[in-house]
């Protein structure tokens, strides 16, 4: 097998090794490198599996290969239970991917969160996205206890203190502080509109270095928000990744609009979908058009493509919009033993072995 050329964002000694720290960078991650080089970044979201099979995660990550700079490992989005973001990150970092670990304040208190931050950083997670999280009433287990011990801003500050001061919230010292690139979410499409740009400023003050926005379907509204953010000088301090995504059909769009709070879809978009022959294709087309519009807005450093259950379109969307300008993000090189490992794992997981504790003890002796 011919040796492939070393990618600009990988350790020449081996893909599994951490990257060299660069001056002015707070993490060793690829996403920070891409953004600080001034390149247009693309991130996406991995649909977390409801399974205990690592191959499910690898297969879902594979479709993004070579098209994205970061993969969000979501933390029970919509308060629906899936594989945890820590688990997904453990698997992805093992393969050299650059996950963005999401932490939602809904499920964990400050003790658990600070532990997860250290654990994630130790596994090689370089990016953490701090979220408040949806309310438990939105998910399939509405009887769960909502924690919300921290909120997204105090979570940002907590992790910034851990990174910059090398301390827990209690003041106890960390022997090795985590090296992280901190992110937050913003929603310019929900009231109070005047406060949103100032709220972004609060997130920056608390430690946000990049932000991903909610789905943008209303470009003029986003432009107004960015104008205000620029006037306040925020865009010089934070990388803004605009959230975009394809709508599967006019029906889905209407459902999202009335059932998912915080997502604003203007009538024009729904009309355009309804008028189309192939609604799915038109949804993709709209997404590409929006990307082409938002990439021209000053202060936008990238896009965050959220294609829930349409992950296979992410590559096409990124390709057809041409935002990468010929750049190839880091891609995992398939190793010869991958197939063997996968088969062996499959066998272990599939083998329907029923052993009682008594049997186990017998075989042990």
């Amino acid at each position: 097998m011919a040796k492939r050329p070393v990618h600009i964002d990988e350790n020449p000694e081996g893909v599994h090794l951490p990257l060299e720290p660069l001056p002015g960078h707070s993490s060793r991650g690829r996403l920070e490198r891409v953004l600080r080089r001034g390149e247009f970044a693309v991130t996406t979201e991995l649909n977390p599996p409801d399974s205990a099979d690592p191959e499910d995660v690898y297969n879902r990550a594979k479709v993004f290969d070579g098209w994205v700079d970061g993969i969000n490992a979501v933390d029970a989005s919509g308060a629906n239970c899936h594989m945890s973001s820590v688990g997904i990150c453990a698997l992805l970092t093992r393969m050299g991917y650059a996950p963005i670990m999401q932490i939602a304040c809904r499920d964990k208190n400050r003790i658990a969160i600070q532990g997860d931050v250290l654990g994630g950083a130790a596994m090689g997670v370089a990016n953490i996205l701090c979220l408040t999280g949806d309310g438990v009433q939105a998910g399939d287990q509405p009887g769960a206890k909502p924690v919300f011990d921290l909120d997204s801003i105090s979570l940002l500050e907590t992790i910034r203190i851990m990174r910059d001061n090398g301390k827990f919230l209690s003041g106890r010292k960390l022997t090795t502080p985590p090296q992280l690139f901190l992110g937050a979410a913003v929603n310019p499409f929900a009231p109070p509109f005047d406060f949103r740009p100032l709220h972004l400023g609060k997130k920056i003050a608390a430690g946000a270095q990049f932000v991903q926005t909610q789905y943008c379907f209303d470009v003029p509204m986003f432009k107004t928000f960015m104008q205000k953010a620029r006037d306040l000088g925020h865009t010089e301090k934070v990388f803004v990744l605009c959230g975009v995504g394809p709508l599967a059909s006019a029906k889905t769009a209407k459902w999202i609009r009335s059932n998912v709070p915080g997502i604003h879809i203007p009538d024009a978009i729904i009309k355009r979908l309804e008028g189309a022959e192939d609604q799915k294709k038109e949804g993709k087309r709209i997404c590409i058009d929006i990307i082409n519009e938002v990439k021209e807005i000053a202060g936008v450093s990238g896009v965050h493509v959220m294609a829930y259950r349409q992950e296979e379109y992410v590559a096409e969307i990124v390709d057809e919009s041409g935002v990468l300008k010929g750049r190839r993000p880091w891609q995992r090189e398939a190793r010869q033993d991958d197939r063997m490992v996968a088969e062996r794992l499959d066998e272990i997981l599939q083998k329907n072995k029923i052993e009682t504790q008594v049997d186990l003890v017998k075989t042990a002796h």
Partner: protein
Amino acid sequence: MAENKTQSTTAAGPASAAAESLPPVAKAGETQASVVKKTAPKTDYKPADVSPQRRVQRSYTVRLWSIRHSRALEWFYARFASMFLKLHPIWKAIGYGRVEAPIKFVERNVKGFMFDCRMCGQCVLSSTGMSCPMNCPKQLRNGPCGGVRANGNCEVEPNMPCVWVKAWEGSRNMAHGDMILNVQKPVDQSLRETSAWLRVTAQAAASREHGAQT
């Protein structure tokens, strides 16, 4: 994958199949959350669709009045706080521990009536436009979440105006409304159900004495 079912075992062998009391699996085109809602037991008594942290069945009239009059309340609170501080020698003479119970009673009822106070013990009303952030189902103290509805109501409690939309409106009327931009520390849960008035007074007195010494 269908056969891949791990069975629970006991020392004697496979455990007997436990009675399944789980909701059915969602079919294509519906979400598990909607199935869970549909299969929930039906009774005549249906509590209001509010978050578990707060089941206060009250209208929001008084709370909204307080936010509309945030400037007057800010002015009043400044006078009230300095009066409380003047009384510090008295509190100290009687003992803060001894006055806690009656003061807490008054504080809980007055602030409970005016702001739907949740007695977090670390009041930030002056920084949040006189809209109590602990009434937010997510108890956010630094700003709204991304789920605010287009009409400005809460994502979790569809009938309640978003605490933070109101906080922003209230803060715009206040002289020191820009305090809303300060990053608030996480809530100290160990201070719940204690008096914020007494704490602020004791701290102000301590810093005043400290200032006099140096």
